[in-house]
Each structure stands twice: as C-alpha cells, then as structure tokens.
C-alpha cells in the first residue's frame, strides 16, 4: 500500500480546511462533472450519475492519484457510494 503523502494532500485539498469527505466529493464532482456536494453519502453513484464500469475505474484512478492512496484491488469497481469509499479511505489513509 502506498504511503499517504501529506504534502500532496495539503497542496490540493487543503486538509486543514476540509475533511476527507469534502475532498472526496470534490474529486467525484471534478471527474464526473456533476455536483455531488449535497448527494446523500449512501446513494448509489453508478445509478445516480449513470456511470459505467470505465467511469468507475477513472474515478478510482483520480482518487488514488489525488489522495496518493491505493485502493485494495478487491474493491475496484465495487465502491458505488461515497459512504463505501470513505470506509475504505479510513483504512488506507494513515
């Protein structure tokens, strides 16, 4: 698992000013070009945003790159909610 890069996080998402959930929502909004800032964390994003499997992988790639983390392979393509993503992020962020 890659080590969490604090400098990268601060530079891009201002960890001092926003929590993980806000940062995650910002990335999802940026990549999907749809505002998810107020979407319920339990909503299935695949249905809500009409994402296909490749969209899902692009999203994972963006989160991994921007947060400098690596999702476990077994979760790829299976994290459909903000809640689910946060649960995994809690595990892999230091």
């Amino acid at each position: 698992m890659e080590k969490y890069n604090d400098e990268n996080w601060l530079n891009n998402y201002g960890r001092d000013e926003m929590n993980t959930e806000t940062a995650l929502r910002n990335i999802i909004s940026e990549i999907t070009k749809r505002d998810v800032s107020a979407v319920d964390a339990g909503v299935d994003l695949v249905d809500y945003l009409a994402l296909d499997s490749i969209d899902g992988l692009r999203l994972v790639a963006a989160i991994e790159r921007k947060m400098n983390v690596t999702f476990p392979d077994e979760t790829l393509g299976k994290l459909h909610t903000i809640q689910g993503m946060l649960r995994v992020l809690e595990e892999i962020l230091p």
Partner: protein
Amino acid sequence: MKIGLIAMSGVRVRTEALGKMGITLPGFVNRGKVIASLPSLGLLTVAALTPEEFDVEYLEYDQLPDEGALPDFDLVGISSFTARINAAYRLSAMYRKRGTPVVLGGIHVALAPDEAQANADAIVIGGAEGVWPQLLEDFKNGSLKPRYQGAMKDVFTPENYVFPRFDLLEGREYNRLTVQTSRGCPLRCDFCAASMHITSSFQQKPVELVIREIEAAKQVIDNPFFEFADDNSFINKKWSKKFLRRLVDLDIRWFTETDISVAEEDEVLDLLAESGCRQILIGLESPVGKDLDGMNPNNWKLKHADHYLEAIDKIQSHGVSVNGCFVLGLDNHDATIFGKVRDFVEKSRLIEVQITVMTPFPGTQLYERLKNEGRLLQDEYWDRCTLFDVNFHPKHMTVAELESGMQWLFGELYNESAFQNRKRHFVNYMKERIAI
C-alpha cells in the same frame, strides 16, 4: 392511422452450461445486458421516415403484454436480428391473426428474405431509407407489396437522410443511446453479416449531421452514454480527426467499434481520450496471426496482427480502454487456442475481453462455405445464433472440445481475480494521465 414499431433486442444463450456461467462470472453478461438495453436506431429512423399523417409508437418486445393484451395498430413494423427472429415471426403471426398487416425488417430479413417474406405481409431489405414512404403509400391504397428493397447506398445524402426520432424515447428509462456515424465496413470479414448485407459499400455520415444528432439526443435523455452504431468508426483517419475535434466540445461519454489501425495515429488517440471515449471494441479475432489468413479479401487482419500487443498498450495508455474480441473455432484453431487466448489476454492487459464462437449467419460467405463442406450442425438454427452457441463442426476440434474449451476460457478470463488484475492495470494507466 397508427403504426406500432416493435424492437427485438437481447439474446439468451441456449447452451445450459454457458447460461449458468453467465450468472456466476462477472463480466460475462455485461456487454449483452448493455446491448439489450439499447433502443433500436433502425426503428427510430423508420419513425422519422414516416409522414406526419401517421401516429407512431415505439415499443420494446420484452415490455409487451401477453398476446391477449397486445396494443392495437393499423400497421406493425418489427425489426429483429437472427437470434430472435423466431420470436419475431410468432409476434407477426399474432398480429396477422387479428388482421393487422405486419412489415418485417432488420438484419435477418436482409440475410434470409424468402423465409422472412413467408412470415409477414411485407418485408424491407436493407435500410428503410428510400422505400418506407412508398410502402406506407401502398399500405394506404391497399396495395402493399410483399417485398421492398431499401437503399443500399447514398443513405446519408440529402435525398435519403432523415434525423432519427430520438424524441420518441422521451420519458423512458434509457441511459444509453445509439447514433450512427457510418454504415458497413470495408474490411469484409467472411463471418460478418452486417457489412455486406445492409449496404453495398462503406458509407460515412457527414460530421455535422452526426454532431446535430448527438445534440438532439442529449435534449431527450439526461447525460446519456452514446454508442456509435457502426461496424468500423475510424477506418478513415482524416474524417475521424475532423469528427473527434468536433466531439470534444460536446462533453459526452461514448463507446464504439473500430479496428486496430486506430492506434496508428497519436492525434487520433489523443482526440479519443479528449472527446470522452470510454472504450473501443476491436475485433482481434485470434491471438495467432496466421489464423487470420484468408479472413478478409486482402488479408487486412493478417497484416495487422503482428502489432496487436503494441497497439493495445498504446491505446490504453491514452486512457481509452480496449474491449478485445476473439472468435473461437476458426478453421485454423485446434484445442490449443483456448490457452493461447488466455495467455494473450494476460500479456496484453486488455481491460475487457469478449469471447464468441464463430457463427455462420445465414447469407454470409462463411455459411455457404460450411454448408458446402457439410459442416453445419443444422441448416436452420437461428435461435442459436447468439455468438455463444456452436452450430458447426470445427475443422481441427470436435464440437464438444470447442464447447468445453470455451467454457474453460470463460472461467479463466471472467473470474473475479482475472477481472481485478485487468482493472488494476487500467487504473494504473489512468493515474498516469490525471493531472494533480
């Protein structure tokens, strides 16, 4: 007067073992589900060719009620492909029994017109362009003819072109829409039913017309995923670049089918990624180049096979996933082919793989050849034309070896672990392209 246009989509694998695998292996049925959920662009075009004096309703066969509750129309048009043609014939018989005339069209009708004609009041062969208004005029006058020949060329010229009726889909649950940028394919593979029977030559739609259609479709369905209903979108690189540059501004996500030469120009690959292309489906057919000998008149696929691995890597490194398609049971294939495909897929890191069995569709060169060689299991087996059910005697294997080898390969390629490995590889490709 009211016309009902009924689309038949989706297929059900007949071989029991494969049907069961579809339930347990992720990825096996994904593409099939997608295809089944696409509206029929052909019937939306027929609707557009229909004069305003007629009311048109677009229906999906799988959403129809039981026979007794079928909606009433003055005329019914049904479009089907081979695997569901028997269901289309049954539906046709139900309407005809009520006294409602039925017109059949679609790819199977073009492949087997005599058979189709026996099951309808009229058939349309080829595209409906250039012939549907005349058919309706004849219907109104009570002089419907048994057979109409649609346009086989010049379908995108002002005389024949119509804007598909995407508005008929308003309020429906589609999240994927089809738009056509070209009709036919110049490669003319011997197993291909579409490229030789729906058009006499490869035809490309002017870029501005495609753009207008996409813009119109976006007005009907919110944030749709587009599938270009083409056999080979990017064979003409000059047209491709012009089209993709215009596509960049439309902010859409899309999928299409093309050939491996798309990797030859970096600018095309950059534009694919920039314009929202999520995946291209490429018919690789076989991992072994010599197996492709004789597949096309000028051996186009054989000449390009040596570059498959390099091309796949180049395309996917641009952030565009490749769905690599393989046909099992080619005449050069023996029982070692299954392992070779598995090894190729692992080496290439294709994000998605489509395995099908060689299928002799009626009317194709392949069908005629196998029939002449006495290798068809039955002369008519349309409900088994699913691309997964074996309908012929392979040259260097038994039928049982082909079926069991295919099942083994499905297990190798579509199991959770193999799927995860391919997904991880694509995520890593994408990470390199995302700006921080």
